[in-house]
């Protein structure tokens, strides 16, 4: 029985060929801890690391691009609208469709996955950074100029630091979004937590892999978000200072 199934599914479900050595897998428990510990170092841990790398690259690139765009729009108001239009369109394209659209021209590789992931971060981080900069109080900008700061000094010493809470809020949303979307990217780039999830989806019976890999994606998102909150607190101690 097992052999027959294995033959039929062999190309799609590589692991399935091995007759299971775990009682809980044979019994098809929802969560099989033996299976997890057996596959941790070969499947789950590498997938988690790949997922983290995918996310870091996407968020970093997205951050650099969107911050640059936001800084230009901050100085040149007319620039905001075209950027918003383009990034909004990118943001609204269904991820599955975007991956399929990019694959023919860019190929089934990490670059394609990153292009798609980066495009989803732009709107969020662009809008947050620009809003943060625009919300710097006028009198603060006026005081900076009046005391003899040039435009660049004012930007680096006053405006960007004051926009930091909004900027990090954008980074947090973008990071969580990318961690979630990167699971879908496994369709075109065979890495990340999406790989065990897709494997599990193809396996109609045994769901431990789906639960564990999905749970790891959620855990990664929560951990990244928590870490960014700490970074934000460390960067903006003044934001919590209120009248004593």
């Amino acid at each position: 029985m097992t052999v027959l199934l294995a033959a039929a599914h062999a190309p799609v479900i590589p692991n399935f060929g091995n007759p299971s050595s775990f009682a809980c897998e044979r019994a098809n428990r929802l969560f099989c801890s033996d299976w997890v510990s057996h596959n941790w170092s070969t499947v789950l841990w590498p997938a988690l690391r790949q997922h983290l790398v995918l996310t870091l690259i996407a968020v970093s690139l997205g951050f650099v691009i969107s911050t640059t765009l936001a800084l230009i729009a901050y100085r040149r108001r007319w620039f905001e609208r075209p950027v918003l239009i383009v990034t909004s369109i990118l943001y609204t394209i269904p991820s599955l469709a975007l991956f399929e659209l990019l694959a023919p021209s860019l190929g089934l590789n990490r670059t394609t996955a990153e292009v798609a992931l980066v495009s989803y971060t732009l709107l969020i981080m662009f809008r947050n950074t620009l809003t943060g900069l625009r919300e710097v109080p006028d009198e603060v900008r006026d005081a900076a100029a009046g005391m003899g700061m040039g435009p660049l000094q004012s930007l680096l010493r006053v405006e960007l630091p004051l926009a930091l809470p909004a900027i990090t809020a954008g980074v947090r949303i973008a990071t969580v979004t990318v961690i979630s979307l990167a699971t879908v990217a496994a369709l075109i780039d065979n890495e990340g937590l999406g790989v065990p999830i897709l494997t599990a989806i193809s396996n109609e019976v045994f769901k431990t892999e789906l639960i564990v890999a999905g749970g790891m994606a959620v855990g990664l998102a929560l951990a990244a978000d928590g870490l960014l909150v700490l970074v934000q607190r460390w960067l903006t101690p003044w934001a919590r200072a209120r009248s004593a």
Partner: protein
Amino acid sequence: MPIDNSAQQEGQSTYRQAAALELRDVSKRYTGQKEPALVDLSLSVGAGEVCVLVGPSGSGKTTAMRLINRMIPLSAGDILLGGRSVLEREPTELRREIGYVIQQIGLFPHLSVADNIATVPRLLGWDKARIAARVEELIELMGLDPEIGKRYPAQLSGGQRQRIGVARALAADPPLMLMDEPFGAIDPINRARLQDEFLRLQERVRKTVVFVTHDIDEAIKMGDRIAILRQGGRLAQYDTPAEILTNPTDDFVAEFVGADRALKRLGLSTLADVRLAPPNGATATDGGVTLDTTVRDALSKVLAAGGSPVTVLDHAGRPAGVVTLELLGGLLGNGALPR
């Protein structure tokens, strides 16, 4: 205790202390606006003087102030600071030499009080030790606890913020201070206290100050000279407070200073300036009137006493003389009051 401005000691500033300021036929027309904001304003402010620009809204007083440090560009005319045209100067460099205080103060919320005060010294590239010493000196000068240096602006009261704003403007020992309604957002009691504090401070630091306000009483209190501007940015009168109160040039000025200008005039002098009637020892009604009491307050006390004479005490608490209604009534007409 003399206030040693470290900038002066080290000869950093081009000015020894305060600098004279001169506006020559200064005009400003904002692009896209039909009416000019300021027309041919000429006035000179002596080194160490407080010049108050006062007028209704739309009189161009803030515009005039912001032209001086080139926060807005001049349309015509010239402005000389210490004899040198501000137009020859790099705007950022010029502004670092001019203290700047605005109504909303504009402290940097993300920087501690000490770092706020250190803004201009840092821009000027002072070394750490010198900045730290200067910050400490200024916090003390403002009568604040040195501990306040570690706090953030959000943790300060309105009055403390205002003092830090002034300290920040004084940090690099500028020869000129620009103050745009600096006490405008403070409640009346604290405003009076801050005004008194600033006058005491000014006695020590002797800066040239351009002070903008819409409040004529504040102008009279703070100014060595007052420039009254009318709508459309034209100068109505530029004179000492006493002269403006005694001889307003026209109806606009007379109306602007108020119907009580005679009383305001009395408020400019204290009983020390007045030749009192001799103390006859008889009625020492102690109304708390001393030589430091303003003539205006003395009149109020005399009226409160039903018009009967009130004894004036000297600094030792002994009767220095008596103030009477007749004596006060004669003061305004005969030019007996100084200033």
